[in-house]
């Protein structure tokens, strides 16, 4: 082997270091976007997660009214953080349907008592079936559903103050 060939491994390695270093310096998008956006809601029919709100079925979304579908759980800490902004969305006229993931009725009731109850209906998804079917991989996530039961927008993670106008705009567009 001649001298210059001995440098090839080092050069290849330097190339790898460059790419890896660049990738590490990039903010990583951890969000897994749902492939269901733009499609119709999958079929589901969930019993009520708490005594004072009804359960929810996919058929009910086809009445012409756009809604927010909020995937949450009483054991989820970011859900506490987003509770005030859900409340604000409700005050501004957004109908919000909840799906409680792997929860117990008494925990749901306690959470709602403490952090407010912005929901018109809450279904209980004990095995995350609905959650996975609509392409959500974590809690909380919020979907915009148009009047024909189609998913038009997905928000991943807790809703922050800056997300409120975005969601309202999406909801308005879904109704148009």
């Amino acid at each position: 082997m001649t001298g210059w060939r001995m440098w090839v491994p080092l050069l290849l390695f330097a190339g790898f270091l460059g790419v890896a270093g660049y990738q590490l310096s990039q903010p990583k998008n951890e969000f897994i976007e749902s492939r269901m956006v733009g499609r119709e809601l999958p079929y589901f029919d969930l019993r009520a997660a708490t005594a004072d709100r009804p359960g929810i079925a996919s058929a009910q979304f086809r009445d012409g009214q756009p809604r927010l579908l909020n995937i949450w759980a009483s054991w989820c800490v970011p859900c506490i953080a987003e509770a005030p902004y859900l409340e604000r969305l409700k005050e501004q006229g957004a109908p919000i349907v909840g799906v409680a993931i792997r929860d117990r009725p008494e925990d749901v009731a306690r959470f709602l008592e403490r952090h407010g109850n912005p929901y018109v209906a809450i279904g209980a998804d004990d095995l995350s079936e609905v959650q996975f079917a609509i392409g959500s991989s974590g809690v909380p996530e919020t979907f915009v559903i148009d009047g024909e039961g189609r998913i038009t927008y997905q928000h991943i993670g807790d809703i922050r103050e800056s997300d409120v106008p975005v969601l309202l705009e999406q909801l308005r567009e879904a109704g148009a």
Partner: protein
Amino acid sequence: MIAELGLAALWLAAALAGLQTIAGFLAVRANTPTALGALIRPAAVVQGVFAGLAFCALLYVFAITDLSVKLVASNSHALKPMVFKLSGAWGNHEGSMLLWVTVMALAGGLIAVIERRLPDRTMQATLAAQGFVAMGFYAFLLLSSNPFERLPIPAEVGMGLNPLLQDIGLAFHPPTLYFGYVGLSIAFSFAVGALLTRQVTPDFARAMRPWVLGAWVFLTVGITAGSYWAYYELGWGGWWFWDPVENASLMPWLAATALLHSASVLAARDALRVWTIMLGVVAFSMSMLGTFLVRSGILTSVHSFAVDPERGTFILLLLALYIGGALLLFALRASTISEGKRFAIASREGALVVNNVMLSAILAIVLLGTLYPLLTEAFDVRVSVGPPYFNPVGAIFVVPMLLVMAVGPLLRWRQDRFARISREMMALAAILVVALILVAVLGAVALLPLLGLALAAMLAVASFLPLRGRKLTRVPIATWGMVVAHFGIAVALFGMASESAFTEERLAALEPGGTTQVGDWAVTLDAIVPVAGPNWTAIEGQLSARLGDGAPIEMRPQSRTFWAPPQQTAESVLATRWNGQLYAVMGDAAGDGRWQVRLWWKPFVTFIWYGGLLVALGGVLAIIGRVIDDLRARNRRRRAAELGEDPAPEDRLPEDRWPEDGWPEDRAPGPPIPEESPA
């Protein structure tokens, strides 16, 4: 208190690694025996002791569930069984790193005590390199991942352990791989030491070989166990997913396999010097690279580790320092290392070179497939590389490699003619062709599994051919190791090919009482019952599986839901027969009183893991054989020295030694090759 002692021991070990590095560096530069040089071996030993103490301290705080230690609070729970409390000590980022440096320090101490073959200077350079590698890991632990960190206020309860990880197999799976990685770090240190002092000799290869073999055995066991774990625990019915984490363990194995064979050539024939050094660096690079890929979270994987970009940066820096440094040293020094002994292409060495090139090509393919998403992501394209790439592209090199593997061990060292082994080659070719035709006629099988089945049949026979015409009691243990390992590859290949060719799958929605058919099995869902465990609840399907008119076997797969932290797992159930496994997984309710049940009949699937274990057993036999040879040679040298004689030449080169019963006619080394005069 114990936690603080552990931390103190860790700092002391780090300081000793520093001493080892600096003293080693100075001693190698001085080139004469110095007082500093005499410190190096003891420093390595004491470093091992302190690292061991630190790890014991960590085990202790986990054993008593000391919730004031952050690591315990976030990874353990007072109610967990003791074995999982202890395995929790290394079932997390900080603890696993501590385990890693501990094993590395213990191994460093061990070579400091026992390795006496190499020149002093080479040994000092080796231990300096070892200390330098260890220092990086100590810095990583102490500066960014202190396992003994206390909480300001002790936690009230521990945060448990990922339920998927509460599995006895998994508790011991990562350490197995770490032992493999650490063994490769020793090989790396030997390579750097040899390169620094330009002592790339057969003795260097012999000193390095047991560590490579040991690392290789651990990696083989680790990969085999990991594959079986993924097979039964994930409940997906597959045994290899080309997941980045799996690739991260496969790549060092491929490099170690190549290194092992090239070190054998160097030890026996003093050839392939530069190539062996290169592979020594590459093998350790692959284990570091794997660690980086897994821990930095730079690639997405089914294995979610504690992912942290800061840690990723740290490992990348270590990687740049060690591997970049070693490759730079290689570039500067390698051309000054003289070429080893010559050999003809038709020779044992020639076959080993071909296999080494094939293994390296497979390694490059796996590496490229693993890193490809990283490359494309730089251009904002997200891709996932899977079996459609790895299987066919890998096969391009695996198939010729297996062919050479069948023939290579039959060739003589140095120079041979294929005509001499034409009978054996014809027989193997006949087996290959007959198997191909038989399988193709008897079943509709895809190309790759078809090739796999035929090659497995040929290789199984070929692996025993090196024994023909020899007195079996006289065959060296290391040769038995080769035979067993090669046979293991044939067995595993048969399992893989059979699984992919003949697996039958059935997804059925059954009412209690309903029956479905998979392969020759009739499976009935007798009942669905809820069951509860200590930290989970589950839906259990009570299945009875019946083969023909045989007695039914009960199978009880579960769909489990854990609540701390919330997670759902499928507890699959396997019924193992000599000729395959029936695999059952419980699915969800179909809604109308029926339940989804997923069933597979996988003929001979278990051969994959039996094969893996045979390969590892072959490695163990090779280690035993080599170590016994070394000890005998050492004793003879000592006796010769006591008598004031020069050691007999055969003690310097055990592989070249004329066997006591003489070489069988067809296995003596071929004639020497004349050195070509430079043109």
